[in-house]
């Protein structure tokens, strides 16, 4: 059977989840892979959840529960929320730096502690990797590039049918030089970030 790979991505509106998705989809296309991606963002700009997908070797742009091979969470609470999409033994990468929803920020609800989130993700998944995406993004030069750091870590885990250099080439080919520079740095920082 030809290669089939499903990646589920989740984050918060404004984080750049869709930019990362499109970048990865372009990279897959440039590697000659049959790629489809999808996004759901009805009211995303207003601080809601943004979910997107990237599928290789599939026609559907949608990923159901238990179908994703890889989960990329750009915000830890959203990583936890999206766990049901991951198949047993799937791979999960998540940012460890949270953007609390309003109810949590204003003390009306409690979010699970990051240690608790990590433990639950580790328990549910095959391989995992956690990164301080916001910090890495700032180190690279722009907070939004933290997402690209997560893509760097994904490449470093050899979980994709193409390598870091394909993503790097796509960044160079599709972004303005200044923006590309920041994102290339973030990609490197993410790839080099040590596993725990």
């Amino acid at each position, binding site marked *: 059977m030809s290669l089939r790979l499903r990646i589920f991505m989740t984050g918060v509106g404004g984080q750049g989840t869709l930019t990362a998705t499109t970048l990865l989809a372009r990279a897959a296309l440039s590697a000659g892979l049959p790629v489809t991606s999808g996004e*759901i963002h*009805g009211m*995303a700009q207003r601080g809601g959840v943004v979910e997107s997908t990237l599928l290789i070797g599939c026609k*559907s742009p949608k990923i159901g529960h238990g179908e994703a091979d890889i989960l990329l969470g750009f915000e830890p609470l959203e990583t936890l929320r999206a766990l049901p999409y991951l198949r*047993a033994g799937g791979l999960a990468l998540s940012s460890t730096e949270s953007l609390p929803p309003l109810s949590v920020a204003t003390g009306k609800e409690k979010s699970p502690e990051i240690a608790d989130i990590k433990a639950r993700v580790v328990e549910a998944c095959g391989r995992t990797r956690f990164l301080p995406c916001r910090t890495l993004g700032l180190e690279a030069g722009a907070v939004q590039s933290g997402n690209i750091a997560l893509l760097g870590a994904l490449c470093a885990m050899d979980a994709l049918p193409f390598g870091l250099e394909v993503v790097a080439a796509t960044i160079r080919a599709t972004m303005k030089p200044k923006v590309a520079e920041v994102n290339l740095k973030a990609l490197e920082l993410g790839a080099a970030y040590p596993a725990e």
Partner: protein
Amino acid sequence: MASPLLAGAPGETHLLLGNEAIVRGAVEAGIQFVSCYPGTPSSEVPDTFFRLSPEGAYSFEYSVNEKVALEVAAGATLAGALSLTTMKHVGVNVAADPLLTLTYLGTPGGFVLLSADDPGCHSSQNEQDNRIYARLAGLPVLEPATAQECKDMARAGLTLSRELGAPVLLRTTTRVNHLRGPVVLAEPSVLPAPAGFQKNPARFVPIPAFARPMHLRLLETLDRLRGLAEVSPFNTVSGTGTVGVVASGISRAYLSDALAETGLEGAVKVLELGFSHPLPENLLASFMEGLTTLLVLEELEPVLETEIRALAQRRGLVLTILGKTPGPLPRFGEYGVALVAEALRELSGTAAPKADCACQAPQPAPLPNRPPNLCAGCPHRATYVAVRKIFGDAAVYSSDIGCYTLGILPPLKAADFLVCMGSSISAGCGAAKAAGQTVVGFIGDSTFFHSGITGLVNAVFNRHDILVVILDNRTTAMTGHQPNPGVDKTTLGDNPVSVDIEKLVRGIGIEQVRKVNPLNLKATLKAIGELKDMSGVRVLIAQEPCPLFARRAYGQKRTQVAYVAADCADAAKDGSCGDCLNTLACPAFHLDEAGKMAIDPLLCSGCMLCLQLCSNIKARKGDAK
């Protein structure tokens, strides 16, 4: 760099959003006229046409509503222009009147209506199935499932419409509009300039004597279209066996993956219907020969299922037809690969594998939700806070469609009922009349132009009692900052012909009008207080640009941010606390590590509403957004 959507060379492959692929397909067909009213999930089609309009060889307009958009395009195609009108599914309700007669008149220049349906209500108030409009109006239907098909069917639909002089419905769903996939470009057609309108009253004026033959001609056209559907390359047969599946729209993608998943590829007979109406009856009848069971895959209503059942009955075919009536598939929401795979397994008697999800254990506690919220600095929040200060829960809040519907959430609680675009005013009038309750209607500027004006004129004429608050944020914010007739700026520059809402309101005879900047709380409270004490039709215009749009289009930079200058716990004791944390729901507010109220300077937009609510919040220099 020129956009590949306009300048891409034949043979090039680009990763395109479904909606961008539709734009390319129209460009390849030689599109000459585009009109729309924006609405998710259709908006990227017109927004892309708008963005590219300085270089494009077409006329483009954001019309005031879908009825107008369709009528403008109807005129254009009658005058020979290849035309496209785009809208979301509920927009077709607004445009239904011209649509149902345009099919009688025909469309000499060619015309495609894009209806973007929303199974699952991702961003809509209902999940109506607009394939039914095609049956009602007499329109052929093309339903793409991939980005490539979005491009190919947009082109084929326009070309077909021009050849037959009959309008075509391009029907998508959210997943199709918002998927991305590789699209191979083709050589664009070059069309002659529109020939202009050719007078022929018997053909174009549907007075009863002419309408009757027009209807007959439409029925003949539909017969011709049925013949074309029989041989369309968008309708394909594959596989063998006694179990068959007919699939349309995005269900075709789910079917393809489900067949691979279940190992049933080739072992069931598949008919994919991309050109789904009029039903290719001969193709279907020969497909059904020798089948014992047929599964029909279509999201929402059992449209094809019902037609196929009727066909089987007429042709004397005996087989079991499964779908939604009575089951096993749902008549609501979206399909998916797992749902289709399960239906296939049931049909073929294959055992289902064990559920294989990473997260079998129930979550220990429900996770805090992350509902969307009005942005920091949103002027709607300021208006809602002021209205609630004056009316509290004593008024019924008749809401409308836009960002401001988010006012439904506590603590603002400023949306009690909502029917459709423009209903805040008219439905609000009826609610007030029925039992004498105080009603405040909220409507945005774009929605007011869309269909609020007629309701307001009606309110004047029928002497209703309502306070209408026009939330004028100088753009159509919810769908992505499209212009409307009232704006003075667009993302492409100035709008020299802005329609003045206040003059319009006064022009229909309303004298009880106040206009405020809602970020000035004192003035807003004073205006609302005055209007509260009056009766009849009253209008408050709360005008302040959407801060996201103001940054983008006006280059607005605020140089101050708000900060908490006192300990809120102490302030609560001495009564000076404005309780902003609990009354504003501002995304910049949070409790810091010590549990004290704080304002995130990165998120604060510098609107300074909170300063006016609490003396313990002050302004300081900072890079407000």
